[in-house]
């Protein structure tokens, strides 16, 4: 499977928004559709230079995490998606982050088009929202209530069944 044709490079360099450079195995980078697209475009042009991909939206601490995820998933890329070990790893992976990190990771996964990571983050957030009250959700995620009192009363009334 490993592509070792002379024209294509096996590694690319990714630059974070705070100007740190990461050397990334191409198979790992391909987990991100954004990086994969960049690599494919460059290869089409037949460049022999090292490919440098600057990511203006992702800081190095977040990029490290995204790449850690991509690396693990690249290892399992040829397996079927239902690998239990990988699922367990995914679960443990997200558990260690606070909400601020989780937020940045979600944004980065969206920006870098790493769908499975985005899905994983969103599932995690959905699980944390479950069973919370509206007030708790606003507090935990620092969301401003921008309803007028009348609007809020109407909407609460409409969804009253969900409050038991």
């Amino acid at each position, binding site marked *: 499977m490993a592509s070792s044709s002379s024209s294509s490079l096996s590694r690319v360099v990714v630059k974070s928004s705070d100007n740190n450079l990461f050397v990334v195995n191409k198979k790992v980078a391909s987990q991100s559709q954004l990086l994969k697209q960049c690599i494919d475009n460059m290869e089409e042009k037949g460049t022999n230079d090292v490919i440098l991909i600057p990511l203006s939206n992702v800081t190095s601490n977040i990029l490290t995490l995204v790449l850690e995820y991509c*690396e693990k998933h690249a290892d399992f890329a040829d397996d079927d998606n239902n690998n239990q070990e990988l699922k367990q790893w995914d679960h443990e992976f997200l558990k260690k982050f606070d909400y601020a990190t989780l937020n940045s990771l979600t944004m980065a996964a969206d920006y870098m088009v790493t769908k499975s990571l985005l899905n994983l983050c969103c599932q995690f957030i959905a699980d944390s929202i479950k069973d919370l009250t509206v007030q708790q959700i606003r507090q935990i995620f620092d*969301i401003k209530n921008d309803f007028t009192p009348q609007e809020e009363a109407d909407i609460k009334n409409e969804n009253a069944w969900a409050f038991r």
Partner: protein
Amino acid sequence: MGCCGDEEEDNLLHKPLLTSSPTQTTIIFTKEATISPMNSNFSALTCRDILRIIFEKLPIADLARAACVCRSWNSVASDREIQAASFMAPWKLKEIVGNPSSGSFWKDNSLSKFAISHRIVRGDSVASLAVKYSVQVIDIKRLNNMMSDHGIYSRERLLIPLSNPDLLIDSTCYIELDLYAKREAAVLYLEGGPPESSCSINRATSELAKRRVIESVRRSLQVDDEIARYYLSITDGDPRSALSEFSEDLRWERQTGLA
């Protein structure tokens, strides 16, 4: 849990940064990692696309509460697709076709909201259907709003309670307002799709409604189906004007001495 920005930033500062760097990924040049102030609030939750992905994973009651959080959450959570996805998720439905008469349809996705459509054929009885679908006679009657065992032939179909949720896996359901049963249900067709490949609720309902109108016009005019259908067609399906049209014609026939 930190509810204001400052606290969250503190948390992050005290949190050890990743200790072991991934094996294949080498960091050439590292500065002290900076935490951007943007990270202090949950910006991902203001992004519609991301919210959609999150909301698609919420059970319906949680989705309803999410709709009460703020305006942008409300607008994403009220989206038909999101509500349908959350409605279908526990049953692993593939698709739900049609729109309910009111948004409150989505609030209850218990098994009783689903029904199998059984097209009545000769020889069917409530009892035989109960055996065929392994459900109780009383449940069929209740679902179809039946007072007695008689008169199932005046109906085109009966709704059968769903006893085996596995039937829903990967299936397509049609939101239909059944006039006889007097209820709106997510209807499953075991043999192919709904009749005449029509899939919208409006079509299915109007089909039933039309039959009832023809029936009543036929009875009040004391004519056959054909004539009832003709008068309905020239009056755009309005039974009242069909009646007056018909009596007009009768009077004319009488006047000209044809009758």
